[in-house]
């Protein structure tokens, strides 16, 4: 005797529904076009079947805000868009939880599963899971997105500071080049130029001279923070500066 099947753990009335829904899901997933298509589930241009009505609502709000900002009068919300939001709200926040809770409550009260309980429980469960779980996961992932945005902002600020410093050194080198040697200049060449101590080091980065030729000077700024950002700047005798960004290996 198999001790696992002494009593049915899931009522027999559920089994055909489980099989039917699973097969229907597989058929839908495998027999419909790829998920990348924007046109899928877009019943019409205006109406979209969704359990996240706040997504199209947000899209409309942002789009209208941008239009207003640009001086264009925003479009009124169409009937299709209203239907998208109403049907989405009803499905996700009314139909799903109601089916699930009513069927579950009645089943628990009567202790006898009725014919309508399995589809109601399964469909309600699917709607509730689809509506409730993804927003929680997306909300949690927002922390990562926020942190990543902060990192990008820090990096951008650091990069701007380093470009500014390299530009300052570059201008100093150009001054050196045009000055005669009697005044401590390069007399038409970058050769002999040295980065002054006050421009060489800061709290956030260090600046060094890589190469000084007659018509070209190459400088490098290396971040002192954990970002490992490194910017190489080439300054030509005409005063043109070109920057190359990279992350150092160390």
């Amino acid at each position, binding site marked *: 005797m198999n001790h696992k099947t002494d009593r049915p753990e899931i009522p027999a009335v559920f089994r055909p529904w489980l099989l039917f829904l699973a097969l229907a899901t597989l058929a839908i997933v495998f027999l419909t076009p790829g998920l990348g298509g924007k046109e899928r589930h877009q019943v019409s241009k205006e109406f979209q079947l969704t359990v996240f009505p706040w997504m199209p609502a947000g899209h409309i709000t942002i789009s209208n805000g941008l239009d207003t900002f640009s001086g264009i009068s925003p479009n009124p919300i169409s009937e299709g868009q209203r239907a998208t939001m109403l049907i989405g709200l009803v499905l996700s926040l009314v139909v799903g939880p109601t089916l699930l809770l009513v069927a579950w409550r009645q089943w628990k009260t009567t202790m006898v599963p009725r014919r309508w309980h399995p589809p109601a429980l399964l469909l309600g469960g699917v709607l509730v899971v689809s509506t409730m779980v993804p927003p929680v*996961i997306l909300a949690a992932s927002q922390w990562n997105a926020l942190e990543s945005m902060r990192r990008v902002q820090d990096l951008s600020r650091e990069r701007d500071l380093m470009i500014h410093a390299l530009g300052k050194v570059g201008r100093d080198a150009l001054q050196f080049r045009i000055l005669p040697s009697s005044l401590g200049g390069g007399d038409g060449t970058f050769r002999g130029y040295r980065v002054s101590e006050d421009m060489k080091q800061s709290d956030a980065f260090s600046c060094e001279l890589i190469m000084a030729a007659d018509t070209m000077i190459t400088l490098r700024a290396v971040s002192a923070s954990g970002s490992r950002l490194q910017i190489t700047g080439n300054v030509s005798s005409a005063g043109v500066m070109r920057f190359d960004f990279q992350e150092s290996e160390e």
Partner: protein
Amino acid sequence: MDQKPNVPIDWQWVETGFCLFVIFHLLPSFIVTSSFSSYDLNAFTVALWTFIALAPIGYFIGYRSTGVTILEPGLASLFYTIVLLFGLLKLQNTAFTFATLTNSLIWMFAAFLVAVVSAWVGEKVQARNKGKTAG
């Protein structure tokens, strides 16, 4: 030396587990993706919920079954991830390469592990509840 009885695999639970995975993981993923795809997000990857949905189903099977049913959710999840592998390749129009195969094998192993561990937790909770009732 004591020898553990050789308990056969309960294929009914494997089938039920597979159906539950499809209904409560693949179908919601599909619904979620359909909603998010129009916003240019790689939503199917997000919608798979990186096994979060697999754990409650494994737990449910472990908790609901009368006997020790740990291998069944593992097998069900294994079959499910095979289906999911082909589903993903088809849906995302991705070629079957060595890299995708390696990734998929890691996925399958992780899914198997998640389902087995959650089923084990379900069994433990069931045993504790039974102990409380008996006590």
